[in-house]
Structure formats: structure tokens, C-alpha cells
């Protein structure tokens, strides 16, 4: 199992952003786009073709799936497809976060060793 997770790492930036946006719960494509835009203060914009292309690849890799559950009816956009993380997707995301965290830690340690 660990091996399988390792094989997905490191994630491509777009994939990572999409998985991160879905960590909070199911979301549709446009929602993901907005979420990423907000989180990165407008620096990362997933244009539609890239967004859905990446979603397709994540679906094929079984990291995300289409969600049958819809949000509260007043917020629901009935025409849209919603996506959520699979258990595998969640573990891959965790592993990637841990990897990035270790990287950040390493940077901090380095900074402390070399005074500016």
C-alpha cells in the first residue's frame, strides 16, 4: 500500500491543488477553480481545460471520484458534477503534505545553520 502511494509522489502542482481543495469536502469544478484562486491569492489559476484534464487524470488514477451526495438544495447547482477524495486520494494527499512539510523543515534547519 505504501508503495502504491509513493508511486504518486511527488504530485504535480495542479493535482495537489485540486486534492487540497477537495480535502474539505465535495466540490464542483468551478468551485475548485475559485478555491485555488482564493487560497493562492490569485497567483494560481487553473484554466478550464487544464482543470478538467487534471480531474480526468485523477479520476483515472482513482484518487478522486464523482460524488453522489449533493450539498444543501439551496446551494446545489443541479447541472454540475461534484467530486470528492477517495480513501486512496486522501492518503496520497497526506503523504504529499508530509513530504512538503519535511522539505519546509529542512529549509528552516538550513536557515538556522547559515546566519544571514
Amino acid at each position, binding site marked *: 500500500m505504501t508503495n502504491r502511494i509513493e508511486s504518486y509522489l511527488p504530485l504535480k502542482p495542479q493535482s495537489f491543488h485540486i486534492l487540497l481543495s477537495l480535502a474539505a469536502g465535495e466540490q464542483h469544478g468551478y468551485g475548485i477553480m475559485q478555491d485555488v484562486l482564493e487560497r493562492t491569492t490569485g497567483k494560481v*489559476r487553473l484554466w*478550464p*481545460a487544464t482543470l478538467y484534464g487534471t480531474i480526468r487524470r485523477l479520476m483515472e488514477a482513482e484518487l478522486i471520484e464523482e460524488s453522489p451526495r449533493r450539498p444543501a438544495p439551496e446551494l446545489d447547482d443541479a447541472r454540475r458534477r461534484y467530486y470528492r477524495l477517495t480513501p486512496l486520494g486522501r492518503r496520497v494527499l497526506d503523504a504529499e503534505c508530509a513530504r512538503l512539510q519535511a522539505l519546509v523543515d529542512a529549509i528552516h534547519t538550513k536557515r538556522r545553520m547559515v546566519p544571514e
Partner: protein
Amino acid sequence: MTIARLYRSLAKAFPHEFKLAYGDDMLRDGEASIARIAQRRGFAGLLPLLADLVLRLPIEYLNEMRHDIPYAFRTLVKSPGYAAVGIVSMGLGIGLTTNLYSTAWSLLTRQLPAAQHASRLVTPEKPVSWYYIQQYRAEKNLFTGVAAVQTSVQFNVELDGARGTKPQRVFGQIVSPDYFSVLGIAPERGRMLSADDQKPGEAPVVISNRFWRSRLHADPDAIGQTIQINGQNATIIGVAPPRFDGALSPAPAEIFVPTTAPPAMVPELGNNVLQQRNAKAFAALMCLAPGVTIDQAEAALDGITRRLDKLDPMAPPETAGGKRVSLLAAGTRALIPRKVKPAILGFYFVLMAAVMAIACLNLATMLLARGANRRRELAIRLGVGASRFRLVRQMVSEGILLSLVGGAAGFALAYALWALYAHTQLPAGAPPNPDNSLDWHVVAFAFVLALLSGIGFSVLPAFSATKTDIATALKEGAVLRLSGHRCFGLRNVAMGAQVAGSLMLLLVTGFLVLGFMRGQSLHTNFNQKTMVLLAVDPVRDGYTAEKSRSFFEQLPERLRQSTEVRSFALAAQPPFPSTDDEDDHQLTAEASHIQSGAARQKVGAGYFSAISEPMLAGREFQQRDERIATDGSGMAAIPVILNEKAARALFGGGSAVGKRLRDDQHEYEVIGVVPTLKDAMGMTQAYAYLPLTQRDFVQPPPGGITIIARGHSAADALVGVRAALTAMDPNLTVFNVETLSEYVELTRAHLRTVLRIYGGIGLFGLILSAVGLAGITGYAVAQRTKEIGIRMALGAPKTQVLGLVLREGLALIAAGTVIGFLGAFTVAKMVSAITKEFADVFQIGTNDPRLLLGAPLLLAGLALLACYIPALRATKIDPLAALRQD
């Protein structure tokens, strides 16, 4: 709003599956984004949005194809016969085309390897003297450099350490020291010749990479080594970059000797060639200054040459009109006049296109037939909701896969052909083959060719196959098709075109091969094995002018006394030369003012009786003619013998003997007419034969004076001549000793290789079309299994079934043959109209009944056989089994 519309149409171009899943969302998100971004950042902000779509489009398609290719692979494995026909067809087609591309085409179009200035190189069509080259060199605003070159010069080379062993005959070039800087070539090792090598008498030489590898075994210490060239010491100063085999000639040069080398080493530089204003011994290799076009340079050079000619007291008077200089682009291996370049390139292009078209037609007809056979499968898939485009893509993937595998096979074939060519044993002394090794250009060419033809020729059949009425197709079943007979259905047109195309190819290549071969067999009125050719140059051996003159005066007497020599003659070159060009010399008949070109050949007394050619009129040269015509200056008229072709051009049907001729220098009197001889390449030209003069005896031409002798056998004659020469001077060097057949063999060695290629192309074209026809007829039979079964169950005899299948094939073959015939003649006429070289060849080829009857019969026979085998299979159909099917 246009951006939104553009976005929508781009989004619609995505693959069907992708659109099904994400198309709507993508459209909605895009439109929402467009509105917002346009508000905030204007149109420029929308560019990344569109770029994103454009960039993702191929990725998504490739992703879809990822599934198509393995599927196509499985389908092909399931029908190996179909796959085999496809792969063989594409393999042959791509292999041959790649071979043509890597040989003829690249000689004509690829720039000289390693030469930085290749695109700016030009050369005048005619040779010029050293003096003129120096004058041209001064035109700094026209040329950045002008080098003098003599191509295809033979050297006897002895490598140091191997002295005493037989010297090797090596082809090279004599170049002025600025040659490499004009070309823009940097050394691979050591240094190239440079202006510092101007000191006369020294002999630094540059060797080609091929020489370094094959003869010096890539010795790292080669630089500085001393080698013997024609018995003189020379120092290797550098190795040229790989694949550079010299400019201005397709014959590879292995060694580059500077013009500053002593004449003892390079006899071509003897006779003060560099000082003689009129010794047109060099080709000028010029590098155009930046911004100067070839037309401008030609016009300017024409003016300069006229001016130079006028200043020269020896030069012809300035005749009105006519170009003095015409420039060729010199950046490629083979040089062709600009005028005929499109025609020659066009010819090769048509040849390549015809081969490829036949191969692709094979593929297309197979796909068509297969599409018809898969109607039911396709109908079912359409019925359950597959898009038509999806099915087309699937079928195109099959086509691409087939042609890619075929392409790989084709490349292997091209490689095999190249290896065969490279290892062909040439007769000793012939210049080596050009180095046409396959490189990445050729790989890329084969790959792109395979990909394009795979796509191009499977799209149409795929659309035709998927144009199906689902309901009837499902009801009918897979194989029984009851559509009406269509004369111009895709399949029939494709099959007819195939027969026509391959007949055309066969005929055109046949014309070439037969034309060349017919010309090849040099017709002489004597046994060629009894003639020996050898050359002497007493001046090179240190004779004074006077001594040389008396030597040649005594020589005939000595030879006459020899018992072994039955007949002999002297000449300025070996007989049947193929180098001179009739367009170079214009002669005018004095009485009628008719002007016509005639090539020239200088021959001695008794030349025509030595080669057993009868005089048609008048007499031939005698020894006194050689004494009369010293320089032509002061003399009334130089005696000249015309061949029939020249006589007819100048004097029509009337008698030529006794008539006067003139050119821009001299006056001539026709003393005889001889039959028109073919040269060693099979060409006939108008010839004016001039007598050898005292001047030729005092200053022999670069190849020496050739002694032509016949005896009981060539060996006998050689013994006789050698004995006579030894009696006169035992130290005289005799060179270029060869029998006439050896000499002819040598001049034709390359031609034969070329012929083999053309013959191969015609033959492969034949095989290709037979394979295609067999495949298509086989499918037609398979498709009609049920119908044939019914017929047989009702009592149709086997012969009737056989006839049924064959009749359809016959009609197509007949139609194709007619079209192919017309096409071949059109191509032959068109190419002949443009180039003289091809015209002579086609003239012979198109009149050969063997080809005109044989080729169509051969093709029709093969085609019939191709139809007959499946037809025979049809008669073996078991009616019961056929009826039970479906």
C-alpha cells in the same frame, strides 16, 4: 462576443469521451471566467485561457489514442493476412522512397556538410583561368571569397612506412589555399589550408575524414606525417570534418592538394597553368557577399568577364548577345543548372510520390475492403452510441499503426539497400561512391512519411466505412452486401489507379534503364578487348619542347615497325569521351551562315582507321595536317572532320567536304565526314574533330598524349607499344594504361549502380501492386462468399464462378493499363522537353518494343495472377458452409 465563440468552438474540438464527461462544465466555467476576466483585465487577460485550451487539446487526444493503439494492435494480430499486406506494402514503399531520398534527392538538395557558407556558394558553369579567378577575387562587394578548384583529380599516394608497396589511387581536388575559408569549414584536426600556404613549392595537404579513417586507421598522430603524392613528399596538415568530401562534384575527394604544390607532384599544374591567361583549368568557387543575390552576381560577373575578355588580345572578339557567365548554386553535392533544377527535382519528386502513392493505395483499398467487411461490427458500435468520429479515429489508428510498423520495415529495407550500395565492388580505379550514409534526416523523413501516409490514406476509407445505414446493416449481416454495382466506387477507382500508377512507374523506370543500357553497350567495329590505351607526357619527364616535338614525329614510324601493333593513333584524350559539351563551341557555316554547336576532340593521323570507323566522305587526318595547323595563326584554314550529326546540322543534306566553317577564333575547312559515334555514356553529340597540333606535342594536355593501339590482343599491342617506347627512351613514364573495355567499364561504373536502383524501383512497384491487387480481390471474394455459395448450390459450374471473379478484375486492369500508358508517355515527354540528358535516354527507351509490350503484359499477367488465386479459392467454397454462415 468573439472570444466566447472562439472558446466554444475550441472546446468542441476536444475528444468525444472527454466532452461527454466534462464538456458542459468546461463550457460553463469558461464562459463565467470570460465575463469576469474581460471586466477586470480586458482581452489580453483572456489569452492564457485560449492558450490553455489549445495546449491541452493534443494532450487529450494523445490520451485517447493511448487506448486506440493497443486496440488497433489486437485487431491487426487477429487478421494477420491483412496486416501482412499492409506492412509489406508500406515497408516497400517507404523503403524505396527513403532510399531515393537519401541518395539522389540529398545529393541534389542537401547542403554541403560542415560548410558554413553553403547557402551563399556559387560557381560559374564553365571553367575559367587562374588569372580570371584573381580578377574575380578583387570584386569585394560581390564576393567574400573566390577559390580555384580542380575536381576529380587522381593522385598516386604512398603512405609513409609503407613505402615500396603499391601506391594507392586516390581521388582528390587541387584547391587554392583559400578554399576552406571560402567554404567556411573548420578543421576536425590540425588546420586547414590558409593564405599562409601561399609559398610556392611547399606541399601541405588536407585529407578527408574518410581518408583518415580508412587509410590511416584514424591515427591520432596523422597531423605532420609525410606521405608521397605522385612520388613527391607532402605533409598532412589537417583532417577535414566528417562527411565533407569536397565541393563542386558528387564524386568524393579524399585529399586536398594546394595550387602552390610543385608541378612535379601535380602535373595538372604544369605548363605554367597558373600564368597562362587562357588556360581555363579551374572551377571558381565563389562565396557571395551578404545581400548579393545570385542574379545580381551573374549580371555583374558577366560584365566583368566581357571587360576582361576585351583586354585580352588572345580572347575571342566580343560577340553580340549571349551570356558569358551563368552561375550555379554550389551549396549542394550535385550541381544542376538553375534552369533545369525544377525539372530534375520534379522528376525525382514524382518518382518518390508514385512509389508512395501505390503503397498508400494498397493500404487504402485494404482499409476500404476491411471497412465493408466490418459493417456489422461498426453498425453495432454506432447503434450503442459510439460517435462516428470515434470509429473513424479507431480505424485511422489502425492505419497509422500499420504504416508505422511498415515504416520501420521500410527503414530496414533502406538500410539494407544502402549497405548493398556501399559494399558494391567498383572496378579498380573508379572514384568511390559518395557517402550517403543514413542519418537522422533520413530517419525523420521515413517517420514523417509513414505517419502522414498512415493518416492521409485511412481517413477516406474510414469515413466511407462508417457511412452506414445502421438498420439495414444490422439486418443484412456482416458479409452479404446488396448495394448496386457502382462503376466509380471508391474501391474501383483505387484499384484502377493502382494499376495505372504501377504501370507508369514500371514504364518510366524501364525507359531509363533500357535507354541507359542500350547506350551502355558501346558499339565498335572491332573487338574492344584488342585495344589498349596508354598515355605519355615527355615534357613532364623533362623533355625540352624541341625534343618532345621530334619524339612525337618519330613515334608513328616506330609503331608502324612493330609487329604486334596492327593499327594505332595518337589523340589528346581516350576515344569515346563523354565530357565535352557541344553547346560550348559554336561553328558557323561560311556560305549559309547557319550556326550550330559541336563538341571538340583532338585526334591524330589515322585515328578513324584505328577505331575502324569508315569515312562517309572525304579523307581523314594525315601526319601533314598535324604540321600545317600549328597555332592556326597565319594559316588559311584548319582542317576539320565533322561527324554526321554536325554535318547535317551545318550543311543539311548537301555535301560538307570542302566547305568552310568558322568560329570566333579560326577558320576551318571540312576535309571529311565520319559516322556519329556514341560516347561511353551512350550519348550522341555533334562533333568536330580537330587534328593534333605541334603545340599539343610541345605542351601535352594534362592527361598526356594518349596512344591508341590495337593488336591481336590488348596485351600484344601493349607489348608492342612499350617496346617501341623503350627503344626511343627507356626512362619515359607510361601512365593510364588500360584496355578499352576497362576504360569504358570505368566510366560507366556509377551509371550501373544508378540503373540498378531504377530497375529495383520498377520491380518493387510491380510487386507492390500485385500484393495490393491480390489483397483486394481476396476481400472481394470473402465478401461474396454467400453469393458464390448460392450460385454453386444452384448448379453454377466452377469455371463460371472463376469467370465472375476474374471479369471484374480484368476490366479494372484494362482501364488502368491504358491510363498508365498515357501517364508514362506524358512524364517521359515532359522530362525530355526540359533536359537534354533525359531526352536522349527516353528517345531510346520509348522506342523499345520489348518494354512497350512487355511491361503491360507483365503487369497484366501479374495482376491476373493476383486475381486468379483468390478466384480459385472462391471455387473451393463449400456451398453448404457458405449458406449456413450467419
